[in-house]
């Protein structure tokens, strides 16, 4: 059976803001965390890796600011750059003879086993199978693409016609909706604690401590509890990391700083002698989980972008990739 996959991702407000959020009051925008690294890989990368295991045709990734709220656009969805690209990708796969189409809206994290889902779909002989958790759809669907052949109408309308005939795949495993930064932090905790299948992308150098490639750890750095340190990150003299904590790739933690039960997102510089506790730190902001407040840090000597040459290169690569992904938008 020939399988293809289309992944849709809500784009960031700006490619320079990996973690830009609206408002400082703790209110969350309808922002996607799909490209934010957690324990060494983003949700998008992890989803792609799962799709690759199914030996599908090369998947299509569509990114845009006007990504539909649901995995299956409604029949009344108006044409636009995103929806037109989505229609075209669907048509191309159907015309190429694909028999099963896996549609994923990358937003929530779950441990859904795609091969189990495919098997369920094949056995149910349903035209459309959608995955549901106890609190709603997980935005994962499989469509019998043969039913879309010789279709003269818009694909979204043809798909809408299949919705009443859909079969529900009831999933009762781990789900994290990733709607708020608290969820991002919880996913990091659950991954380190082994409560979900989100594994740290590194080598377990000692029990519950994972390091990715090219990590520079000063011998004086104290590490306690479950900790992940991402590729190319550098921890200077006298730092203390207490788990569960994660320092994602290309970060720099300067001398004497304490990171406790926190998530430091990729490419972040954290200045000297600081105390980061129960927070999610990005290149420009610190979000305190207990106070539910985000603070923009204007002084780059405290928190800022890691300007280490390796980090700049990594940021450039990430920017080019996001441009590439948006080219189809």
């Amino acid at each position, binding site marked *: 059976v020939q399988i293809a996959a289309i992944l849709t991702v809500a784009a960031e407000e700006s490619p320079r803001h990996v973690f830009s959020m609206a408002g*400082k009051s703790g209110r969350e925008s309808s922002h996607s965390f799909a490209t934010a690294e957690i324990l060494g890989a983003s949700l998008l990368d992890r989803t792609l890796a799962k799709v690759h295991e199914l030996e599908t045709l090369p998947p299509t990734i569509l990114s845009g600011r006007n990504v539909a709220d649901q995995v299956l656009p409604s029949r009344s969805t108006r044409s636009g750059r995103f929806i037109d690209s989505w229609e075209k990708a669907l048509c191309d796969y159907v015309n190429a003879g694909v028999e099963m189409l896996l549609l994923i809206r990358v937003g929530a994290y779950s441990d859904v086993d795609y091969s189990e889902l495919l098997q369920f779909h094949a056995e149910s002989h349903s035209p459309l199978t959608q995955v549901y958790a106890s609190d709603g759809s997980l935005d994962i669907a499989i469509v019998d693409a043969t039913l879309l052949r010789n279709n003269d109408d818009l694909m979204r309308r043809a798909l809408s016609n299949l919705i009443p005939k859909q079969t529900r795949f009831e999933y009762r495993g781990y789900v994290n909706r990733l709607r708020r930064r608290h969820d991002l932090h919880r996913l990091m905790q659950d991954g380190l604690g082994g409560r979900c299948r989100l594994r740290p992308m590194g080598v377990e150098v000692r029990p519950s401590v994972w390091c990715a490639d090219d990590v520079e750890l000063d011998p004086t750095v104290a590490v306690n509890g479950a900790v992940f340190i991402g590729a190319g990150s550098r921890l200077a003299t006298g730092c203390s990391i207490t788990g569960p904590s994660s320092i994602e790739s290309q970060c720099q933690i300067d001398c004497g700083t304490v990171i406790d039960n926190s998530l430091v997102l990729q490419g972040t510089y954290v200045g000297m*002698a*600081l*105390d*980061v*506790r129960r*927070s999610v730190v990005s290149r420009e902001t*610190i979000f*305190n989980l207990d*106070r*539910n*407040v985000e*603070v*923009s*840090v*204007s*002084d780059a*000597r*405290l*928190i800022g972008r890691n300007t280490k040459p390796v980090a700049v290169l990594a940021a450039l690569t990430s920017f080019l990739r996001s441009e590439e992904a948006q080219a189809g938008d």
Partner: protein
Amino acid sequence: MECKPAVNKPHLYRNRVFSHSVKNPEEGRNRSIMSCALVVKVPEALDAKNARKLGRELKSKFSSDSPFVVLDFSRVKDIDLPGLDGLLSCMNEVARQDGGLQLSGVSPEAATLLELMRVNELMQKFPGFSIDAQQFEVAPEMAPEGVPAESPVQMPVAA
């Protein structure tokens, strides 16, 4: 001791009179204290410029008779390193004169930044004065002339 009335400066520095007697339960006797605390409303951004102003104002208003300062952080949303430096200088000055320093009404943003910069730890070590209505008895007769006596105000203190 002289306590001047409120001065309507950009930073809204205010003198507030606390006239009270403190009951010391350990000694079992009343000890009268007359103190004058300088309440400083810190602007939204505690940066180099505002830190300099803060230092200047404190120097001019600060009295060795009553080196008690309350920094009102309710409006503060941003603190940078020069701002922190200014705050530390202020703490240093108060400590030198054996005074007391408190932060009041700290906004969540300021609390996050102060914690990040470990100022909260410093404040805990600082021998601040306690403004707790339950520990005070108002003694209006102790109020200085020309200044209306005020009840001690219980202020939220967060360090």
